[in-house]
């Protein structure tokens, strides 16, 4: 194997690797703005200049191929002098905007100015002034003054999103970025450019000025927008989700996530108007808030008043593996359920070959594997609907899905039922028809697992506290505010909803029934799953970890 010497240490490398890649692999950081491991090499920022023995001038580490016997010095006086010079040059026209800039705190330029800058500028002339608020697209705001022309966003939209929408115009210090004439920066992946922008030039219209990055806690989670299950971080302040960002996982989403998932999968968690707070029972035609005890007793009492064959159970591909497993176990053990199914939410033609899937649910494979399907000659979803029409089905138990929304006639059909029990986090068409409404925690408020389209089982963790969760006791990530706030501080008083994960609610119900579910934690449910579902055998939460585990199953269709 060829060998390269970097800072006096010898490393092996593969032919075709550049100096920066070899250094990164071996834990040596060479500063870089324009270089990105997933994008083509541009080589325009010059911050990665390093000294290579026997080369007359410094070379850029991002585009110089490593060669056998090469001796690289990333800390020599010459290299450091060059780095300082490049920093000074980049900072000439960069505004001193940090107090108002959203990137502050996670800004590469800020970090490098601190690490590699000289600390003072010799530039006494007026800085170049450019437009501060340019709407590049529906979700992106561009501050031309802050841009350091690294071209990462241009390369991203061309190479990753496959839409060549951005370009440089003008020359020298007047250079700026714009969309092509008649174009808008509106591809489904635009917001990834915010993450890769090394400065605060590209900002999210949605998150703009909402919170400083150091004021939030971040929790590793998974996006629930489609069956891809992109790895995410949930950023929370005052118990409200402020933003989602993608988390690197090469086997699932690489570095990216789509704009739809980033913007539209967390708003409902914060929505005080639609969130269901505490269990409700229909009294005199009105949904009335009751205690858990009352709701559970009422649900069991009314369920018992039907023949088992008159009850149908609908699980959900939006719910976790744990919830679905507990659901089928609860219904089969206590009601001998055969009429069991879940609804698929597939939008044909909506997928692409980057990340977005046609299946808009995060866990349909998990629902299938945990056994959410008709037993023997039981009814599937379509037959259950027909059963309601023909009065064969009189009671329906729906977990975490808006069934009434699926078809225009379902709403009137569900209204005909004698009993409709619904688990839901937010009000929707189905919940307005419910006789008993049990509030569930959203994906951001519970532990659990989901299985993506390729059979990757991945973990979700609570980022937002509910009434049953306490940040410090339940070991949820905490910001400085969360850690030191008291109940007299306003920031520590974020709204907490009275909601529980579905498996826990089913556990409560089962206490009134012959076959009890004895789960205390989500881990207990998963342990049960791993013992009874062959695809999950041998797995536990520690093994799944941050990055997930690929399971083997003949039910994986692997269709994008």
């Amino acid at each position, binding site marked *: 194997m060829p060998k390269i010497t970097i800072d006096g240490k010898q490393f092996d490398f593969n032919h075709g690797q550049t100096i920066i890649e070899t250094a990164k692999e071996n834990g040596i950081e060479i500063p870089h703005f324009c270089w990105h491991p997933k994008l083509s090499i541009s080589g325009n920022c010059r911050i990665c200049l390093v000294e290579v023995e026997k080369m007359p001038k410094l070379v850029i580490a991002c585009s110089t191929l490593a060669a056998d016997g090469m001796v690289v010095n990333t800390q020599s006086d010459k290299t450091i002098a060059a780095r300082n010079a490049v920093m000074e040059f980049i900072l000439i026209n960069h505004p001193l905007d*940090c*107090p*108002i800039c959203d990137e*502050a705190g996670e800004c590469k330029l800020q970090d490098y100015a601190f690490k590699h800058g000289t600390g003072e500028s010799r530039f006494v002339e007026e800085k170049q002034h450019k437009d*501060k*608020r340019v709407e590049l697209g529906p979700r992106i705001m561009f501050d031309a003054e802050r841009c350091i022309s690294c071209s990462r966003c241009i390369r991203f939209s061309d190479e990753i999103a496959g839409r060549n929408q951005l370009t440089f115009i003008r020359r020298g210090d007047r250079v700026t970025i714009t969309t092509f004439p008649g174009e808008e920066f509106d591809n489904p992946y635009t917001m990834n450019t915010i993450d890769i922008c090394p400065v605060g030039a590209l900002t999210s219209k949605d998150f*703009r*000025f*909402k*919170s*400083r990055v*150091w*004021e939030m806690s971040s929790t590793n989670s998974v996006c629930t927008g489609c069956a891809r299950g992109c790895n995410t971080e949930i950023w929370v302040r005052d118990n409200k989700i402020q933003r989602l960002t993608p988390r690197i996982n090469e086997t699932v989403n690489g570095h990216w996530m789509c704009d739809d998932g980033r913007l539209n999968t967390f708003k409902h968690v914060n929505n005080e108007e639609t969130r269901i707070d505490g269990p409700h029972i229909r009294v005199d035609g009105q949904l009335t808030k009751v205690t858990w005890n009352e709701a559970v007793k009422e649900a069991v009492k009314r369920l018992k008043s039907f023949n088992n064959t008159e009850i149908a159970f609908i699980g959900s591909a939006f719910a976790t593996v744990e919830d679905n497993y507990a659901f089928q176990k609860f219904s089969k053990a206590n009601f001998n359920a055969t009429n069991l199914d879940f609804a698929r939410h597939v939008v044909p033609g909506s997928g692409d070959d980057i990340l977005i899937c046609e299946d808009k649910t995060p866990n349909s494979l998990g629902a299938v594997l945990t056994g959410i399907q008709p037993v023997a000659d039981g009814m599937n979803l379509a037959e259950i609907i027909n059963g309601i029409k023909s009065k064969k089905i009189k009671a329906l138990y729906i977990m975490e899905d808006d069934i009434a929304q699926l078809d225009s006639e379902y709403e009137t059909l569900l209204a005909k039922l004698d009993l409709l029990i619904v688990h839901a986090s937010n009000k929707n068409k189905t919940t307005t028809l419910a006789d008993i409404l049990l509030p569930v925690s959203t994906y951001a408020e519970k532990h659990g697992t989901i299985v993506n389209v390729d059979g990757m089982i991945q973990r979700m963790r609570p980022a937002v506290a509910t009434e049953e969760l306490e940040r410090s006791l339940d070991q949820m990530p905490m910001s*400085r*505010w969360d850690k*030191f*706030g008291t109940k*007299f*501080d*306003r*920031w520590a008083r974020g709204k907490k909803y009275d909601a529980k994960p579905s498996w826990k609610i089913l556990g409560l119900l089962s206490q009134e029934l012959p076959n009890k579910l004895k789960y205390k934690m989500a881990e207990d449910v998963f342990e049960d799953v791993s013992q009874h579902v062959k695809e999950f055998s041998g797995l536990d939460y520690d093994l799944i970890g941050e990055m997930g585990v690929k399971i083997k199953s003949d039910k994986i269709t692997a269709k994008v």
Partner: protein
Amino acid sequence: MGVKKRQKDLTTLDKLYLPEIFKGLALTFKSMFKPKVTMEYPEVKFEPPASYRGRPVLVQEENGVERCVACGLCSRVCPALAIEVRANETELEKERYPETFEINMIRCIFCGFCEEVCPEEAIVMSKDYELVFTNREDAVYGKDKLLVPVHKLKDRLEFLRNFK
């Protein structure tokens, strides 16, 4: 080895009390002719010098807009976590402004770090030392109480330019 005299054992002279009483009276009598150092607060109020660190306030420009751009540094640096800032976007040139700015005066320790860290000279320590509240809610000062017109803070701003 004689018995050691205890300190509280008094001499005859001490037991008389009179010498000490005259000593005290002499001191009081002397002070009557010295200039007064007390004030009849609250009728007469103490005017602190510019270096005084009273309650922190926000500087309000002549046009009524606060200088603060809601960068959150004061909130970050505050060792007592007294300051909470919530930013939002404004049409003004400064782009960002504090939608709410609250200082919990029960938490505040008057260290002046917020003033020191502020990149805009937007939060300064005032001469106001009269802080009265009867419950915890009232102790949280919002923008209504924090904003002070710049002309009332000239002393402090000048002091900061000279000595900061």
